[in-house]
């Protein structure tokens, strides 16, 4: 069953600005990355699905509930971590998260209990009794995640969850998102413009641009292994490249690396023999996987060339 489905979803502001132009989506449970440049319509889509803004046209359902007619029922099972700051400064994390749990329909005692568990899950311990205003950005992001998780949602919408975090905080947050999605059966829709993050965490990728769906598919379809072998040698790489070229291989130099178009088993033996003959140390032989960054770089470069 699709966990999230939209049909011809349109959002216009006034008569000139189209944020979403007839979006058709059908997504299976899992960790879904929502990618697009700033202004592509990621946040608009999430806000429509959460009932925060109305759509101009089209239909949408999440977890089988109609977003527009069954909103309050649906949203008991939905968690949302906004991109922007959304925490009051003058209450403690415990107080705030427990309140949010009750707003999501949990009885008081269950709310208290789950608040403690969820705050531990996101890595907040003794500091959870202090006022939020004294928290670091990393701690605030954790509280934001905790309030989205405290009622054990079936689907979680994360809008740029690593916003403002340092590299270590970023790693921890991504780890947390990944574990939440894989270990507790919570589907996650994570919007980001950082492809590296999406690649690390998500199983499925949705690319939108200018309010249109560009592509939707499992991550591995995007990053299928390419026919490129990366070889790094210790020593005279130019001579090494020349030797391989003479043997009839197509080469692309890339810094100290030599990239070889692979086709069958042949190149592996040639690389081995060339190293042996020239007395070079073989540092790395790797069949390259295309990263998401590469795909989008190619796309924007060709767009630039066309423009």
């Amino acid at each position, binding site marked *: 069953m699709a966990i999230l489905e939209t049909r011809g979803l349109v959002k216009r502001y006034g008569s000139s600005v189209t944020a979403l132009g007839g979006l058709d989506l059908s997504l299976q449970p899992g960790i879904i990355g929502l990618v697009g440049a700033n202004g592509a319509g990621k946040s608009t889509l999430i806000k429509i699905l*959460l*009932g*925060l*803004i109305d759509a101009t046209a089209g239909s949408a359902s999440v977890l089988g509930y109609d977003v527009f007619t069954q*909103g*309050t*029922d649906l*949203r*008991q*099972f*939905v968690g*949302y971590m*906004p991109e*922007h*700051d*959304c*925490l*009051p*400064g*003058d*209450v403690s994390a415990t*107080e705030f998260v427990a*309140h*949010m749990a*009750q*707003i*999501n*329909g*949990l*009885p008081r005692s*269950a709310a208290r209990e*789950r608040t*403690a*568990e*969820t*705050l*531990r*899950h*996101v*890595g907040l311990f003794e500091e959870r009794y202090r*006022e939020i205003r004294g928290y670091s950005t990393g701690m605030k992001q954790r509280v934001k995640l905790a*309030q989205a*998780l405290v*009622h*054990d949602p079936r689907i979680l919408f994360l809008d740029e969850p690593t916003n403002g975090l340092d590299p270590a905080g970023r790693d921890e947050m991504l780890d*947390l998102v990944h*574990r*939440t999605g894989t*270990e*507790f*059966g919570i589907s996650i829709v994570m919007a980001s413009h950082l492809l590296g993050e999406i690649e690390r965490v998500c199983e499925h990728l949705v690319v939108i641009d200018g309010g249109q769906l560009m592509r939707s598919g499992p991550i591995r379809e995007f990053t299928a292994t390419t026919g490129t072998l990366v070889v790094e040698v210790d020593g005279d790489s130019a001579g090494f490249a020349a030797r391989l070229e003479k043997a009839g291989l197509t080469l692309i130099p890339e810094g100290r690396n030599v990239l070889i178009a692979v086709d069958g088993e042949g190149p592996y033996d040639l690389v081995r023999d060339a190293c042996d003959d020239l007395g070079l140390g073989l540092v790395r032989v790797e069949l390259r996987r295309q990263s998401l960054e590469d795909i989008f770089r190619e796309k924007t470069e060709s767009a630039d060339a066309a423009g």
Partner: protein
Amino acid sequence: MQPAETRTGSIYDLGYRNYDGVRLGRRHAAMSLYWYTLRGAFGIGRRTSSKILPILIAIFAFIPAIVQLGAAALFGDEAEIFKPQDYFGFVEVPIALFCAVIAPEIAGRDLRQRTLSLYFSRALLRQDYALAKIAAFATALTLLTLGPQVVLLFGNGLATDDIWGYIQDNWAELPQTLVSGLLIAACAAAFCLALAAQTSRRAYATIAVIAWFLITFPIANTLVYAIGGVGSLAVYFSPFDFMHGCTLFIFNAEPGFDSVQDEAGYPMWTYLVAVLAYTAAGAALVLRRFMRIAA
């Protein structure tokens, strides 16, 4: 088997479990917001500094009742006992101050801190949010409008020899006391929130509420006494005046000689209509504001 120590690296593993218990939905969400707002109005669950002002102002409202009780205890029957319908005159300034301090907090806080998107993406409708806020603020205000009356009723009873006799004698006024206290609280709550919700800036909201109570009062009195005629309509724009008029009407009491209601000369029921109209208009404005606001 893995040694237990390998798990110490991932201490976050403690805790998260799936939840299979009940989910109580929209009504529970609205009730929770009501209680949270009510507690917040008195700074409960917040730092000490946010408790000081609301509690201090609430004490102001109780001081006349306590002074009266002290006088009754010292001088016995000779002390004149406040009538319930006159108590509004003693609490009107504390009510205005309480509204000026608390209404911007209740109406603007989630807007300033951008918490609205968290509320509106949960099992709660925008109208539930607005109504829960009004109800919580009105409840907080009843502490000021009704609390001192309760203290007076029991205190005066204690001062006499026969407490139950006293309470029975004064029982007849209890419904009027309740109705007037609730109406004034609802009216002040709804309209002050309507004023305060129009801006996310705290200072502007406070000034708007203060102006509604305290600036209109001298202007209205000047217009009524100095000009009269059409100028007397100003009583309907001064909350102290029309709320007092409403209280008098509910107790079926005559306005005092030369009071502003006496001078204006309108039928007393019109003040009840004014209170109801302000309450309805205020609630409608608060609803409208939160239905439209971007979250």
